[in-house]
């Protein structure tokens, strides 16, 4: 099992990846009973699971080590209104994409970083921090991404209530350009 503190992988070989979405769903529920009615099979090779933030790491590690999901494709951040949504898209060698959907508070601490198990997650997490203001803990000191250094504090472009000072109306819309003082 992965040691969450150091990210050390012991040398147990991974199990072969699943080819059946129903089998995947059953195995997840078997390991985590609270996922009982939270798993949707949208179509072939697409499985969605809603996970509470506190259980995110446990489910992620289990999916990586026991179920063969060793690729983290990306982390999508969304603005759900009162809180932020975080979607972790995992993939395995047989093409199944398992998306773990969790939520994080807009103004409070979010989940810990998953870089111990997925080293490249750093960029994805920095993107969610910069553009949506999520607070993901455990990231080392580093450059921000993707916004420029001089970007003002507290401005999160992807939040629904953020409007730039010079919003251009979409083609075809009739509203005049907004101006802010």
């Amino acid at each position, binding site marked *: 099992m992965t040691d969450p503190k150091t990210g050390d992988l012991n040398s147990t070989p991974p199990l072969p990846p699943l080819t059946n979405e129903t089998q995947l769903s059953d195995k997840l529920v078997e390991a985590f009973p609270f996922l009982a009615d939270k798993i949707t099979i949208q179509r072939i090779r697409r499985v969605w699971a809603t996970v509470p933030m506190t259980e995110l790491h446990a489910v992620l590690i289990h999916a990586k080590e026991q179920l063969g999901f060793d690729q983290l494709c990306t982390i999508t951040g969304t603005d759900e209104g009162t809180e932020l949504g975080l979607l972790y898209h995992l993939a395995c060698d047989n093409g199944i994409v398992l998306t773990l959907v969790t939520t994080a508070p807009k103004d409070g601490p979010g989940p810990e970083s998953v870089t111990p198990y997925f080293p490249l997650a750093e960029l994805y997490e920095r993107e969610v921090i910069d553009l949506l203001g999520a607070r993901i803990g455990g990231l080392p000191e580093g450059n921000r991404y993707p*916004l*420029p*250094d*001089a*970007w*003002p504090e507290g*401005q999160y*472009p992807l939040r629904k209530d953020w409007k*730039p*000072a*010079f*919003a*251009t109306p979409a083609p075809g819309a009739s509203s005049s350009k907004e*101006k802010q003082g």
Partner: protein
Amino acid sequence: MGVVDRIVTWARLKSPWIIHFNSGACNACDIEVVASLTPRYDVERFGVALKGTPRHADVLVCSGPVTRQISDRLVRIYEQMPQPKFVVAVGTCACSGGIFDGLYNVMGGIDSVIPVHAYIPGCPASPEAIIDGVVKLLTALENGASAPIERPRVALDNIRHMDGIIAPQQLIRSRADQKAGEQDD
């Protein structure tokens, strides 16, 4: 023009050295600029040489809408070129911001930060259009034109200090209004 001036101008027109810069583009225009150097279009027969440093270049061939992060680098590169220097904006994004006009991290076309002498539209500008643009610029220079069309530009300070997110289009508009207002008085 004295004899030396005439020779120097002739050299500049017959063999313009260019530096190519991508200020946040999608790369399509950049690939077309490089394709102009390949055997089918072969812009080197006009004496155009692609140089690695702005200090050796006569013409800055620039593509892409100017993103905030790259804007002061673009200005720095422009300032490092020796006079007389000319700027060619390749592609619709470089001319006016194109499809990216109004996005929060995009400042607009190249002319929002540096003066531009020639605009080559297209998405992407095809190599034929690029050659046409370069030849038109050289012809205009031959006929004595050397000043770019002056547009009010964002001052360098406004790029460096982003207090609030200032819209370059707003600044341009307000300066143009100011000028119009002055003329009316």
